[in-house]
């Protein structure tokens, strides 16, 4: 399909409320270019990624800026053939160990960008443009590789004559994000930073958004400026409280360090740990609620993280 006639495949404003299992089955296909929202330890689409793992949808190309836990789960499940990203990183909690091993072993292909150049690719896609200029990357090995792969070119700015890098638009087949709330028409509210997500969503053919709370149609009629992303871009809305657990949702709950740290320690040790984690926490359960009930019986950890977030606001 030529760039510029890139279509949203959902009829505008026809988002449907459904379960995570239904949404993933409807919109995530094997071999898809999959955009992942969230960043690091905040608002990662964990419930939706669990469902992709549960349905064993493979051959994925995963794209995003700061890819984190969701990518590591997908790689550990053997579902990823390629990534295009600004970083694979959990900061204080380390790198993405499953991803690192897969990249080092050439089990997955990787294309590196800076965060700005990757975010600019989504911006191009969101505006129906074939590429976006950036002045980052110049002189770097990052650029050298992208030029060699024909994923970027350096041109002279027509007006100043200065070098500028063109990076190609990135238009995911489907993106997964987790947000604070949405109404039944798919109008999404994100509290806190939005990282790369708004442009990535608008550049995508399909978007599944899981939310802490689904509100009735018209919920934002008296305050439409609260809406971060119009329902025009959203294919499916999934109500999943705690759907980013163990990562945080700004204003709702803090990240749960001990679970993230535990996963990272096991992932660092080898592929067995993450595989066991997925078997125990994803495959063994019918849905994300069952995982939550098993990982946090009684909900005391969730209550504590909600209280911790309130104390920080």
């Amino acid at each position, binding site marked *: 399909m030529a760039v510029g006639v890139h279509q949203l495949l959902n009829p505008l404003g026809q988002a449907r409320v459904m379960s995570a299992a239904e949404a993933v089955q409807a919109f995530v296909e094997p071999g898809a270019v999959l955009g992942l929202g969230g960043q690091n330890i905040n608002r990662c689409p964990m419930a939706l990624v669990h469902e992709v793992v549960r349905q064993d949808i493979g051959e994925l190309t995963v794209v995003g800026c700061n890819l984190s836990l969701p990518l590591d789960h997908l790689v550990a499940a053997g579902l990823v053939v390629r990534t295009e990203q600004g970083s694979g990183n959990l*900061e204080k909690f380390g*790198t993405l160990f499953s991803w690192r091993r897969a990249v080092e072993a050439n089990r997955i292909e990787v294309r590196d960008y800076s*965060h*700005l150049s990757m*975010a600019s690719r989504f*911006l191009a896609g969101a505006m129906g443009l074939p590429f976006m200029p950036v002045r980052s990357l110049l*002189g770097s090995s990052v650029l050298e590789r992208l030029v060699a792969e024909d994923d970027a070119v350096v041109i002279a700015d027509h007006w100043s004559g200065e070098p500028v890098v063109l990076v190609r638009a990135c238009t995911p087949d489907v993106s997964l994000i987790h947000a604070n709330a949405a109404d039944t028409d798919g109008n999404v509210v994100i509290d806190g*930073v939005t*990282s790369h997500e708004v442009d990535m969503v608008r550049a995508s053919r399909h978007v599944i958004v899981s939310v802490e709370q689904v509100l009735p149609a018209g919920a934002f009629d008296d305050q439409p400026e609260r809406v971060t992303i119009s329902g025009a871009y959203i294919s499916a809305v999934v109500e999943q409280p705690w759907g980013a657990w163990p990562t945080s949702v*700004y204003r709702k709950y803090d990240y749960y360090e001990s679970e993230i740290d535990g996963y990272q320690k096991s992932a660092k040790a080898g592929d067995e740990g993450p595989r066991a984690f997925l078997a125990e926490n994803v495959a063994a359960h019918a849905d994300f609620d069952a995982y939550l009930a098993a990982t946090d019986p009684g909900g005391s950890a969730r209550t504590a993280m909600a209280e911790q977030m309130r104390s920080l606001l």
Partner: protein
Amino acid sequence: MTVTEPAISALPRELLVFEGARQIADGDCVIAGTGLPLLAGLVAQRTHAPHARLLIESGVVFPKVVPTPLSVVDPRIMHAPSKLGSLIESLGGFVQRGLVATGFLGGAQIDARANINSTWIQRGSGRVRLPGSGGANDIASHCATIVVLTSHEKRRFPERCDYITSPGFLDGPGARRRAGLNPVWVKVVTDLCVLEGDDTEGELTVSALMPGATVEDVLANTGFTPRIADHLDVVATPSAEHLALLRDVLDPDSRYFPERHSPERLKNGKH
């Protein structure tokens, strides 16, 4: 008169924070990730640079940080900002646009020409994959001053990086200009010394030593032979008051200083 030792002496990695803070002028806009760089920014704000403003790559504009963020999207770093925006806003609207004077970076390797690698390192016949650029390439491409805080180990200071994630002086004098980048001034603060340089020199020069360190220590732990300035300053130790600010106020749970509780990890602060 005898010289009195400070009542409490700073740990090597704490000295990095204070020397990092000294690179920030009052009124500067500074982009920093979590860890020692962020703590350096916060020390500057609470001491000599009350009007310095922080920018966080995730989209947090001018936050009033509370202890102790472990991530650039931590709610503790989103506290009371001017705006909670996006990556495009921080790295495009501020950094690429040229509104951020000073950027703090880390990295696995920094070479004689101040290029930084955070993507791939060669180890024997294999390659080790690192997290990648993140916002680092953007910051190194567009900020006028780059400050690197790092432990001083030979493998971290090769003659030439295996991979240039973030540009320093590239191949030497004039190379940034030829590539289409603006000039940059780089200051690298380690637990042994301070190295600095700019485009016209095209390489790093040792300009100061950490208290107790010698030029021999620096040379023995550096993978290239750096220029040594004619006069070497000794990095100032923080006052007890400033040390207490870092320890009791900014990182009260020692999230970034595990060595405070485990003396065997003192050297280089390895986790």
